[in-house]
């Protein structure tokens, strides 16, 4: 089970990297989406997985008895997902506006800020 996560992370980063290097702005957008999902997954998996164990102390106990899942990466990734979602939502609108304004989705036409 654990081996699946690195593979998934690798696929996400690979596809993200490929798409980011495209000239079409929508593909770049999809690329950074995959990129950030890969990063989120890595952040989540980075501390190791503990399947079937609780991340919180049982209501009656004072301490954990037995193995427990580290709750911190879950909190971190939740924050990262929320932030990434906000930025992506903004990015989508921005790309749409840039497309409406410039009439092109080819990044080679995005040179009006270069002179």
């Amino acid at each position, binding site marked *: 089970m654990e081996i699946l996560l690195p593979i998934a992370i690798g696929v996400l980063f690979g596809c993200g990297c490929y798409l*980011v290097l495209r000239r079409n*702005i929508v593909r*770049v957008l999809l690329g*950074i989406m995959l*990129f*950030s999902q*890969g*990063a*989120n997954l*890595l*952040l*989540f*998996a*980075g*501390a*190791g*997985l*503990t399947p079937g*164990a609780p991340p*919180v*102390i049982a209501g009656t106990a*004072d*301490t*954990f*008895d*037995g*193995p*427990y*899942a*580290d*709750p*911190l*990466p879950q*909190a*971190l990734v*939740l*924050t*990262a997902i*929320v*932030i*990434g979602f*906000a*930025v992506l939502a*903004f*990015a989508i609108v*921005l*790309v749409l*506006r*840039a497309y409406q*304004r*410039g009439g092109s989705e080819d990044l080679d036409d*995005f*040179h*009006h*800020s*270069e*002179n």
Partner: protein
Amino acid sequence: MPADSLLIALPLIIPLFGVALLLCLRRVPERYCLGITVGLCLLLTAASAGLVAAVVQDGVLVLRSGAWPAPFGIALVADRFSAAMVLVTAVIGLAGAIYAIGHGTAKFRGFFTPLYMALLLGVNGSFLTGDLFNLYVWFEVMLMASFVLVALPGGRPQLEAAVKYLVLNFIASAFFLVGLGVTYGIAGTLNMADLAQKFATLEDPGMVLTSATLFLIAFGIKAGIFPFYFWLPSSYHVTPTPIAAVFAGLLTKVGVYALIRVSTVVYTGQQDFIQSILLPLGILTMITGVFGAASQFLIPRILSFHIISQIGYMIIGLAFFTEAAIAATVFYIIHHILVKSNLFLVGGMVGRQLGTQQLKRTGGLYKTAPIMAALFLIPAMSLGGIPPLSGFFAKFALVQEGILLGHWIAVAAALAVGLMTLYSMIKIWNEAFWKAPPVERSAPLSRIPVTMWIPVIGLAACTITFGLFPGVFFEFAQDAAAEIMNPRAYIEAVLLPAELLDPGEAAAPAAAEAARAIEAAEGIGADAPAPAESAPDQPSLP
């Protein structure tokens, strides 16, 4: 202690309050909103000055948010370096806000002031936090505000610039997150002081180097270091002048600050590796930046490329990694923020007066606006490193240390780049101020509002003060560098043993519990039944 805690919190509370207040006042005429912003920035400056004074008096100050002891809660930390950065941020924020009154912010449809305060909030948070994940959150606060500030005027150049700026910085954030994941995987903590201790006892440095490299890439993109800087010169110059000035002064320096903080507190053991990467990168950053500037003819674009070349100086200062070099870097950063923002503001005045910032179409300002010419000359000569001004002392200290250490290539590059910087500044001087105006100009010169003069004169006065009394500021920079290079005090202040905690500040049982957890924090991993964490880890929400 509560007063100190308040001093650390104020640079965050004031802008946060400002964001909320100014969002509510969106329909109020902009001059009132800008007036409130200036007032808040004045308050911020006063609070930051208080913070600097407190830090100079008492050493490192720590605010444990929610009174959770250090590795569990989020600690806000102020030492001399971060306090000084917060103060400079407030000064630049004040200058930009005053300038914006004269400049006008109609294009932002009422969102200028809240976004501006959000930007300052993010910058201050990045300077004050002692936790890496919290740093990520502050980065995002700052970036989100800056994305919108770039895009909001809504012209084609702005939208395209915002796309580039957003994509590259988003990728930087992804690298940052990956670095955080790897770091947490190795050490089980993201508190910088705690990390320093964990990494010091680690056997296998391989993964530590991986995380260091990931952070280097993430901060390198934000700081505008050599292979990563391309977003900067294609986005800053399309923003309105007050925004460009604040971006130019602060945003890249947050990246540099993070690099310095992380490599001196966390990755002290990996210094050789970091130095071997940073030194060539710093040299290349200086050289490519200055050559980029030499080929440009739009004032803000020249200045944008010069941000990059000056970042190179700070990076080689960090790469030298001696106390004197870090002192020079601290001095350099503060000098650079004041001077670069001022140059952008003067460039904006030129644009306002002549209706263009394109050097081919400017000219004759020395005759029509001699005071403006003088005000340009002060920061321009300072940036080029001409003796009585602040830039000279910054470059002198850096080059001297380079010679003492025998980094000849870096020294040669620094001197050559200084000369090229002077060339660029003289190019602007000749084209905009000295040469006869192009004949076709018939429109009368626009008047410059007084609110544009005030910040420019104020910042120029700061530069001159730096130049006249370099000793005072250098002493401060040396004390700051001593703190940076000996992170013991920083680490101990953050990870204060629980029994020393003020009983009023933390619930005693929680603190004692946490202390036991620190003792046995070896096995934070899932398999070892770790001691009780009575402090449930809080998600670090902005």
